[in-house]
């Protein structure tokens, strides 16, 4: 399996993205912003198709648009960012516009499936390097703000009283989420970002109640989903994104069962 270039690239890309998605996802689930994270990827779809329309590489359209949307959501604050009607509205409008852009640039239409559902097996070496650099920057940024971010997420009033700016951390975190979402979309596509960003983190929080263990376990689950998903896709010829989403759902179910069972001990 590893004799093939495209498999090496796929594994490299999936590894970077899984570690990033698992770590960022832990905070996303903790803050109850899973839906907002999901919505950011849809906005990215519009960015990608819009970028192609004006002659820019779709990855940068994806990154730029999700980053802008993330910062705006963070700025508007928790009240607006958490309202599911508002988020759903932006989400569906984005997909609509994305479709419109595809309509004007029909040559790109075949790439739409890849954008929506991911095509990790088509990732080239240059993309792997881009993912690595972006991913490392995101992880470093997350590591630096992780302590105040945790404080602000658990006790916003206390954090404010201690001098922290809620708006700043909201914006900084959603910017990191936006970039992580853009990276995830390269692997599993815009529609399935949830499987790497939210599912592993939610499963980890069923299994452990410690913060550090939770983040590590979340990244580990995401890695498992990505690696085994890729392996199964190679040998069965079924889509990778299907396997990853199936595995991540299975792990979440197992985690819930584990928690219920360990209650009876």
């Amino acid at each position, binding site marked *: 399996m590893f004799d093939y270039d495209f498999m090496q690239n796929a594994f490299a890309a999936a590894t970077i993205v899984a570690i990033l998605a698992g770590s960022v996802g832990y905070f996303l689930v*903790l803050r109850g912003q899973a839906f907002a994270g999901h919505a950011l990827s849809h906005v990215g779809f519009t960015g990608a198709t819009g970028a192609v329309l004006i002659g820019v590489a779709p990855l940068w359209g994806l990154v730029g648009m999700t980053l802008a949307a993330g910062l705006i959501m963070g700025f508007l604050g928790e009240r607006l960012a958490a309202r599911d009607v508002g988020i759903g509205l932006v989400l569906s409008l984005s997909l609509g516009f994305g479709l419109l852009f595809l309509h004007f640039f029909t040559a790109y239409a075949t790439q739409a499936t890849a954008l929506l559902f991911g095509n990790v097996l088509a990732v080239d070496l240059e993309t792997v390097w881009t993912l690595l650099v972006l991913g490392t920057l995101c992880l470093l940024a997350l*590591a630096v703000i992780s302590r105040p971010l945790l*404080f602000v997420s658990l006790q916003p009033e206390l954090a404010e009283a201690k001098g922290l700016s809620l708006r700043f951390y909201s914006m900084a975190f959603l910017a990191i989420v936006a970039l992580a979402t853009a990276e995830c979309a390269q692997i599993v596509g815009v529609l399935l970002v949830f499987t790497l960003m939210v599912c592993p983190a939610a499963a980890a929080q069923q299994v452990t109640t410690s913060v550090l263990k939770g983040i590590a376990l979340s990244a580990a689950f995401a890695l498992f989903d990505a690696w085994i998903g890729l392996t199964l896709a190679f040998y069965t010829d079924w889509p990778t994104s299907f396997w990853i989403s199936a595995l991540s759902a299975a792990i979440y179910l197992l985690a819930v069962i584990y928690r219920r069972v360990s209650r009876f001990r």
Partner: protein
Amino acid sequence: MSAFSFQNVRLVLGQRVILDDVSLDIRSSEFVGVLGPNGAGKTSLMRAVLGLIQPRTGSIQVLGQPVSRGNPAVGYMPQVRAALGSLRLSGWDFVAGVVSGHRLGLPILTKAGRSDVDRALDLVGARDLARRPLADLSGGERQRLLLAQSLVGRPRLLLLDEPLISLDPRHQQTVVELAKALQVELGITVLFSAHELNPLLGSLDRVLYLGAGQAALGTVDEVITGPVLSRLYGSEMEVIRLNDRIFVMSGSAEVPNCHHAGA
């Protein structure tokens, strides 16, 4: 020694005047109950002491210094939030989240930090409780963790914002007794805001009663009287004492009305 003092403070929130030219001085090592109707400014007063609201006029001094945001010697227990009930985080990690929480870096505690958390948990008797996830705890148990959290960092002034909300009378008594025990044992100043006076009666040193932009500070006998409360509520109030309990009446209605969960 003064814990905090207001000099001619005017606090305004939006259009409403919360405090109008109020001066008061809270002494150190006092247990003060903060009372008043909804919207009287109990939370706003605490936020002003925390430096989150600036007074329009006048000045506030906290522990001998001008008020500032992020004073490590001031501990704060905010009103309980419903969202805490779904957190799959251990009580210990929840309380530990505030240790050096304002500093950048990874959420890893030093030995000193860990022992501070353990000390705070021991003070409220929640060490074993803290092993369980927040989502599995009862409301009273979560309040205890919030109290432990406010004790991290060894504050000299503790602001407790309505700790009795949605607790049944038995648990209310436990929380008040715990707060009083902490105040005496640690020699700190405690401000305890509540809707009802009776749960606090046995523990109070003084009462701070807010209403109509004014504040009355003094012992229960000085403040909880018809004339003083009538002035604060802006209508005829009567105070009835019965069996070591105090009932504040406005006409035929008892004030405040009984507050059950969700009030």
